[in-house]
């Protein structure tokens, strides 16, 4: 082949690759919603995600469920939650959960085949553990914010089914301190102290919560249920549980007359974006999961692998400050889902890169077949073979979109505070703070005697 036709063919292949890279992935299609949330424009985020879902307003549910619809609904649910539309958020989470559960269980023959030839995005979306556990936790929070303990209890049980599954089959991923904490709170409010203590024991497996000392000591004295973490917590004493910053108490405090539960959700978890790396580096990263002979790649026109990698969300806030009636109270970190998502993805990265290289091999083999067929041409067989190989490989590369699907609106860090209060009217100020400055919220709550109120602030940035 002369050098001019070869250059033209290479240029065509480059164009095909550029086209492939320009092809929108899930994270591209939901970028407008994240941009709006990042600017503090939650209504704009709601409109953007509705547009991505093909819906006019949040009162509508999809009628056609495609591979990304359930995930899109999770994104909308989180925006609605941040806007305080708890009923709509709950409806979306419930609808999405049912669809995602069906996808988890469904056979995916076409998707599995597509995964080896085209892209991981050909497969049905399998919800990872952190997302699955967060789904029921946030729906529990929706019901709590609505004051519906029965609804929250149902979500607590659903959370338990999933957590138990991971505990039995994938103990490394049996996280979910946030869900366990909230479930404990739900059962505590319902008066089922034994069940509440069992959930608090789960939550304590991941970190210590000073503000749980007093309620646990109180319930333990009556219900007697305990585990190693509860025993350890009680052995340390009741400390300053639930009191204002700087306060202390020697013995478990009596049950408060009224209580405020504050939940602060800041930031968003890392999300997936297409990343290009040279084939050589990719082979090193995904060697254990490559299917096929990598030497065939020597003939490939494409010298880079495109795979989905995690990108930081550029969170403006990473902690918060709370005051009730002018008195400061500490917020306790209950979970860092950003870290959990990153850890889950680090475990999967070699497999994902291995699968991407395996697809390159499949394409290179197909291109070699086309090249061999082209070479049988009577006129200018070298050029025909080269062009046929480039066309086959280029077309297959164009279909390879990195699978960037994930629940991108999931908050990164969750803080809680339990404030024992006198019944009546209270003024709460809650500031989200971090490298992006601060965002202040002020709320007024009325709590009846013996009752509770839940205040949620979700910044999504």
């Amino acid at each position: 082949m002369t050098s001019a036709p070869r250059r033209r063919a290479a240029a065509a292949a480059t164009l095909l690759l550029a086209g492939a890279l320009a092809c929108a992935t899930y994270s591209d299609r939901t970028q407008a919603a994240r941009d709006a949330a990042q600017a503090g424009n939650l209504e704009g985020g709601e409109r953007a995600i509705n547009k991505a879902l093909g819906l006019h307003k949040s009162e509508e549910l999809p009628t056609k469920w495609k591979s990304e619809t359930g995930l899109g609904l999770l994104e909308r649910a989180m925006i609605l939650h941040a806007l305080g539309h708890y009923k709509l958020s709950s409806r979306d989470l419930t609808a999405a959960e049912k669809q995602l559960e069906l996808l988890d269980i469904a056979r995916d023959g076409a998707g599995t085949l597509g995964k080896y030839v085209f892209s991981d995005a050909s497969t049905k979306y399998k919800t990872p553990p952190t997302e699955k556990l967060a789904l029921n936790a946030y729906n529990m929070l929706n019901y709590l914010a609505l004051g519906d303990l029965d609804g929250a209890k149902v979500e607590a049980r659903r959370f338990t089914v999933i957590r138990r599954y991971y505990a039995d089959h994938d103990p490394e991923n049996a996280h979910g301190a946030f869900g366990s904490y909230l479930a404990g709170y739900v059962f505590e409010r319902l008066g089922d102290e034994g069940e509440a203590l069992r959930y608090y024991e789960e939550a304590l497996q991941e970190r210590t919560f000073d503000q749980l000392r007093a309620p646990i000591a109180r319930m333990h004295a009556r219900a007697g249920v305990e585990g190693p973490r509860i025993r350890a917590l009680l052995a340390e004493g009741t400390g300053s549980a639930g009191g204002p910053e700087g306060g202390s108490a020697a013995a478990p405090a009596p049950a408060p007359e009224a209580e405020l539960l504050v939940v602060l959700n800041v930031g968003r978890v890392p999300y997936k974006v297409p990343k290009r790396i040279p084939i050589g580096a990719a082979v090193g990263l995904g060697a254990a999961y490559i299917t096929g002979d990598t030497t065939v790649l020597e003939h490939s026109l494409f010298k880079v692998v495109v795979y989905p990698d995690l990108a930081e969300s550029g969170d403006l806030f990473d902690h918060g400050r709370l005051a009730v009636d002018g008195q400061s109270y500490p917020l306790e970190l209950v979970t860092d889902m950003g870290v959990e998502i990153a850890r889950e993805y680090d475990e999967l990265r070699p497999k994902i890169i291995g699968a991407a290289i395996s697809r390159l091999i499949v394409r290179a083999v197909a291109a070699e077949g086309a090249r061999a067929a082209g070479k049988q041409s009577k006129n200018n067989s070298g050029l025909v073979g080269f062009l046929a190989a480039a066309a086959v490989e280029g077309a297959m590369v164009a279909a390879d979109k990195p699978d960037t699907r994930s629940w991108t609106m999931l908050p990164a860090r969750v803080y809680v505070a339990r404030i024992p209060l006198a019944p009546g009217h209270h003024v709460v100020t809650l500031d989200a703070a971090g490298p992006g400055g601060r965002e202040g919220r002020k709320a007024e709550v009325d709590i009846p005697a013996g009752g509770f109120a839940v205040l949620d602030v979700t910044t999504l940035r």
Partner: protein
Amino acid sequence: MPTRLRAPALLTALALTIPAAACGPKAVRGGPGTENPNLDQGAMSTTLDRKDLQDLMKVNMDQLFASNWWATMRSAPARPVVAIWPIKNETTEHIDGQLDTLLGDIETQLVNSGVVAVVSRERQAEMAREVGVQQNQQIYDGAYAAQISKQIGAQYYVTGKVGVVDEYMGDERRVQYTLYMQVLEVETSLLAYQTKSERSKAIVR
């Protein structure tokens, strides 16, 4: 385009549009006496649907009507007064709406039996508000149920709960429901009668 070609082109477009429109989603009517008599037969999820609840209730009501307690009611000199209290949802599904419908069905059967007099549920709710039942969990508190039932002149109250065993595996989810129905004597809080029925639902491959 020349005018004489427009009509065939329009017809072709119409011919293409009609089947396309026919393939879109549409609402249908189902159940006995409709064009889709079996519409309610298929399970759409692991939650309890109307057919499940009707099946569960039928088993429980048949057993109730065949019980010794019911025979005692039949032979009572005056129709005993019965109150109906909510069925507690102890499942992993948001089925409170369905359970409310079930309660309405139980009420209908008891009323139509002519054997017992049934207190209106609206009156019960009114009484509950009067004695200060505010938070939802108190509705299921036996002491409240007995207190209010007594105030409205009931000798017995019917209640129940739906329990669940919900298990999830990588390729299957199975939910086993049990509906318990109880009759309690208001004066003594003793259990006069209890029955149960079971239904399993699953998502399998």
